[in-house]
């Protein structure tokens, strides 16, 4: 028997697939691009949600991972398009325009960054943790601005989208499907993680650190692993996002980006599996609809956020299906 939340989740996943397919039939290419953006930003949020939702780690530095994923794409693709190796000594490393390789490198690089940032910041908690993750993100942001080899402040463009074996990635619907399938796979992973022994221990550490230590488990280790997984997923989203735009710039690393990812998660529902998807969809819709009327559209986003924080702690998902029922 399906819970109400699972039913809603299936409907949401079906909607995200149906909209671009309908758009394709109606030749509305722009809508396909918007749906792709929703899928990718949702993926970034699913990453954050593992740290924030299950682990209670309020990271304002997830732009670092999103941006590292973006730059992994930008750097590899730029070298591939210019036929210049990234380095020749001590051994040859060349660029690539193959998405699977780019994703792998984006995942590894952002996981390593999360390991370092997590190891240093998870010794603190509360506001200090927020500030330290923010500081690490900003550090990378300013580094990217000054990194002239890859466009500095102006960012790095690539001419053609990277390739995926057997697909035409320049066809919007095919690229959408790539992002959609990855999102679905990561959602399945995330759902399993939440119910796993690790997920239980991590959720316990969020609620009562002392209890977790008393049963002989180390909260720091649990959180660090969660932070690394979380960062790796957000990094993968960053690589896809840069590929969608065929462009990466320091903006992807700025704290605004961290804030936006967090806003999706909060609006959709912290710790709710499909919260990031709902949040990202609302964000993109508001930006698209209200952005046409007023450049201050984010005020409405702010209002929505405020409403969620004050009245609906489970976000929109919680408002629709109610409190999470403890799993079997």
């Amino acid at each position, binding site marked *: 028997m399906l819970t109400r939340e699972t039913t809603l989740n299936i409907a949401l996943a079906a909607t995200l697939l149906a909209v671009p397919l309908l758009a394709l039939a109606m030749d509305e290419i722009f809508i396909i691009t918007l749906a792709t953006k929703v899928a990718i930003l949702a993926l970034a949020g699913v990453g954050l949600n593992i740290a924030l939702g299950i682990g209670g780690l309020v990271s304002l530095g997830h732009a670092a991972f999103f941006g590292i994923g973006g730059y992994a794409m930008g750097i590899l693709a730029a070298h591939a398009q210019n036929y210049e190796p990234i380095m020749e000594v001590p051994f040859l490393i060349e660029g690539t325009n193959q998405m699977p390789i780019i994703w792998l490198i984006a995942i590894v690089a952002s996981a390593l960054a999360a390991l370092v940032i997590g190891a240093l910041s998870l010794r603190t908690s509360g506001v200090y943790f927020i500030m330290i993750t923010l500081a690490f993100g900003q550090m990378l942001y300013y580094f990217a601005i000054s990194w002239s080899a890859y466009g500095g402040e102006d960012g790095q463009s690539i001419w053609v989208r990277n390739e995926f074996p057997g697909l035409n990635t320049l066809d919007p619907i095919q690229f959408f499907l790539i992002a959609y399938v990855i999102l679905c796979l990561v959602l399945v992973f995330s759902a399993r993680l939440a119910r*796993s*022994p*690790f997920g239980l*221990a991590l*959720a316990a550490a969020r*609620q009562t650190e002392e209890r977790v230590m008393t049963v*002989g488990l180390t909260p720091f280790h*649990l959180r660090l692993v969660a932070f690394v997984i979380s960062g790796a997923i957000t990094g993968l989203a960053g690589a896809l996002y840069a590929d969608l735009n065929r462009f990466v710039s320091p903006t992807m690393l700025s704290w605004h980006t961290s804030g936006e990812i967090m806003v999706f998660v909060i609006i959709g529902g912290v710790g709710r599996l499909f919260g990031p998807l709902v949040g990202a969809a609302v964000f993109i819709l508001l930006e698209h609809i209200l952005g046409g009327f007023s450049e201050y559209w984010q005020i409405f986003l702010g209002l929505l956020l405020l409403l969620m924080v004050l009245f609906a702690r489970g976000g929109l998902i919680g408002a629709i299906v109610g409190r999470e029922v403890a799993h079997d």
Partner: protein
Amino acid sequence: MTDAHPVLKVEGISKSFGALKASDNVSLDLRPGEIHALIGPNGAGKSTLIKQISGSLRPDSGRIEVLGRDVTDLDTVARARLGLGRTFQISSLAMEFTVLQNVVLGALGARGRAFSFFRNVMKDKALLESAYRALERVGLQGEAQRRTADLSHGQRRQLEVAVALTLQPKLFLMDEPMAGLGASGSKALTGFLDQLRHEAPILLVEHDMDAVFALADRITVLVYGAVIATGTADEIRANAEVRRAYLGEEDAA
């Protein structure tokens, strides 16, 4: 039995909070098979001592030995793994979890491997078996699927004990497990602890004097952080200083 090697040995523990001496050169031990009760008025420093033994608070000076090993410099996690099972005075359960999830967490801790990412923890037979057994032993099996936040205070106490049971510890540290249980509840728990001492000895902090005198092989009385007496129930009852400092107060109340 009395000359057996102690499972826990506390030697000259002192701890101050500013000018307040919460532990004042406290020494005590816990022997195999015994219940050692720690009593004293409110604010005497009982919980502070338990915290130092469990590792969540560092003593200013003194030494703690568990199973012959010096654990003074070990953290809570390491001491738990050595076999300390603690219940809290102020419940530290995961309130959003179901009752069952809380005990499964204990069983998971006992297994010592939490880095498993794909299997459903609530379908793990070995963990569930250990969890249900612990719930049955404290009489909470009927509440397994309830949210912990919805339990009464007494039930939370029982759940605290159940989580400690899943750890299969070498000794128990119990901080007021009877509080909020009501007459029949404390009676049931008293009977249970009486049996439990044969699995692992218990250092028991308790205000319920009926339970203390029924259970304790030995009693240590703490007043203003210092031990004023240690002895059998009869010795403590007969001790003039204890009557004046503590039991007398109760009679007057």
